[in-house]
């Protein structure tokens, strides 16, 4: 197989006497959707936080494209090309779609107005935002200066995914992207995820929704008791296999 784009070895993270990650390994290959499933408390969130820079692991190494990295903040992971769409979306409701898409990486005007007066270049940001939203077929949002709080749940998810897709050059992490959505809106978000994948960006998908996981994922990382139990292929395993593995009702076949 090819070189993994994102690889973690022997990650350990303890919170007091609780070991959330217990010598956990992880690999993401180029161009794939890797689903991460696991029971509540299995350490999925901690694993994702370690990969996205929100948590610093106590032990172990993370490699991005073969180079060792260590992220102190989500910002550093972002600068390295790893974008995360959190379950809470991390959007500011009262700010506009454009403001939200560019939070933390605004474009300034050129010349004196930009360098001395730090003036933002709204025309450029609006054009870029419009372009990215259209690419993902999200332009039924008519006015990109409208506040995010005026959007529906699916549209908000769309904006958050578009933000990640627009800037995430290497890896996109999606945490429960369909958890709060209805059937129709879930469907659109799933299509959106496939759109992003077709553009060659690998995706880590965390979800409790087995049908969605089996529909989208190329491989499924089963997380149990703080470590990777096994990686299964959705084509050769059933949903009940996956559930049995992650709950401990069944042990993985010796590989």
């Amino acid at each position, binding site marked *: 197989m090819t070189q993994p784009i994102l690889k973690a070895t022997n990650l350990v993270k303890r919170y007091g006497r609780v070991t959330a990650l217990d010598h956990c390994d992880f690999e993401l290959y180029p161009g794939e959707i890797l689903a991460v499933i696991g029971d509540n408390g299995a350490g999925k969130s901690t694993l994702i936080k370690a990969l996205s820079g*929100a948590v610093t692991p106590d032990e172990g190494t993370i490699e991005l494209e073969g180079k060792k990295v260590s992220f102190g*903040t*989500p*910002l550093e992971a*972002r600068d390295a090309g790893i974008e*995360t769409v*959190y379950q*809470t*979306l*991390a*959007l*500011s*409701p*009262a*700010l506009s779609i454009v*403001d*939200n898409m560019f*939070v*933390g*990486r*605004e474009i*300034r005007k050129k010349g004196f107005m930009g360098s001395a*007066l*730090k*003036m*933002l270049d709204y025309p450029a940001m609006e054009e870029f935002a419009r372009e990215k939203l259209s690419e993902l*077929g*999200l*332009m*039924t949002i008519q006015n990109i200066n409208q506040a995010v*709080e*005026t959007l*529906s749940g*699916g*549209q908000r998810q*769309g904006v958050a995914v578009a933000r990640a897709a627009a800037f995430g050059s290497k890896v996109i992490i999606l945490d429960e992207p369909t958890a709060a959505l209805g*059937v*129709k*809106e879930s*469907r*659109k*978000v*799933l*299509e*959106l995820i496939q759109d992003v994948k077709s553009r060659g960006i690998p995706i880590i998908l965390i979800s409790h929704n087995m*049908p969605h996981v089996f*529909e989208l994922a190329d491989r499924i990382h089963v997380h149990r008791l703080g470590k990777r139990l096994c990686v299964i292929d959705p084509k050769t395993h059933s949903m009940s296999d996956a559930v049995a593995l992650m709950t401990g009702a069944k042990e993985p076949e010796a590989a």
Partner: protein
Amino acid sequence: MTEPTNPQPKGQDFERVLGGSDTRVASFAETKRTPVQQIQHILHSNPTLVPVIVLALSLFVFGLIAGGRFFSAFNLSLIMQQVSIIGILAAAQSMIIITAGIDLSVAAIMVLMSVIMGKLSIDLGVPTPIGILIGMIGGIGAGMMNGWFITKVKLPPFITTLGTWSIFFALNLYLSGAQSIRSQDIDEFAPLLKFFGHSFDVAGARITYGSVLMVLVFIVLWYMLNKTAWGRHVYAVGDDKEAADLAGIRSDRVLISVYALAGLVCAIAGWASIGRVGSISPQSFYEGNLQSITAVVIGGISLFGGRGSIMGALFGALIVGVFQSGLRMAGVDVLWQVFAIGWLIIIAVAIDQWIRKVSA
């Protein structure tokens, strides 16, 4: 989201029926909006309109009651002078309230810094510009102290600034010996401290440099809050701090910078207050903290953070000034002025809540 005009039969079994589903998503029934709802809608998208309308209305009403005297250029410029100090404090307060905080120590910082500037320049013989500069730096330091307790020690802004209010007030009494610095001494040793009390006349209006300073402070801060990345981050932090953190904003730094800048603005107000009052009194502006919050609230800035324009606070301060001047001219007792301002606050917040109820 795109409307899949005719989704291919893919996905889960139960989703097959989606192909025939209604493709409209929560469309708006535009025609059914009543005039009142339309007004509500317009106000929701332009929050500063409310204080502007109230200001225009109150000018109109007091113009009718008090007649030409009220509307004279002289009286209007006098209102500007009267609100200038509280106005500048309200500008500092607005920034902090936009971050979902509150600062009870603004006036205490202001008076403390004016005392420091006066003591240095007059009693200790420091050159006045240096004295003023030290006052400005002191203002930044006092603001940073508030910001540090709030972000690093994680104390609520209300408690932090309630504490620093007392601390700064006590320091101010200690440094000044509870004595005012007399106007004649300032004129003799440090006339520059009174710079913002000087004025120029335009068409019968007497405009002090302090009034001009207030307007300038608002314009500069409005620009910073609306046209720079820093300003957008201030709004994002006030709106939802956790979301802002995850989106990559270093919210602690933003908050400390806001409190530090507010401290600087308070020190500027301290300098301007020397010109306005004439002397330096450690007991002055004791109600300045609450008056600045009043102006911000009447200006339509949400106490929950993230919403409202700083320009609202300018109009809020002017509304208070117009009410006081108009009622005074109409011969109404001071206690009823205070009574009216109280109602103004409650009505302003009630209108604000009503506007917020609009769904998009």
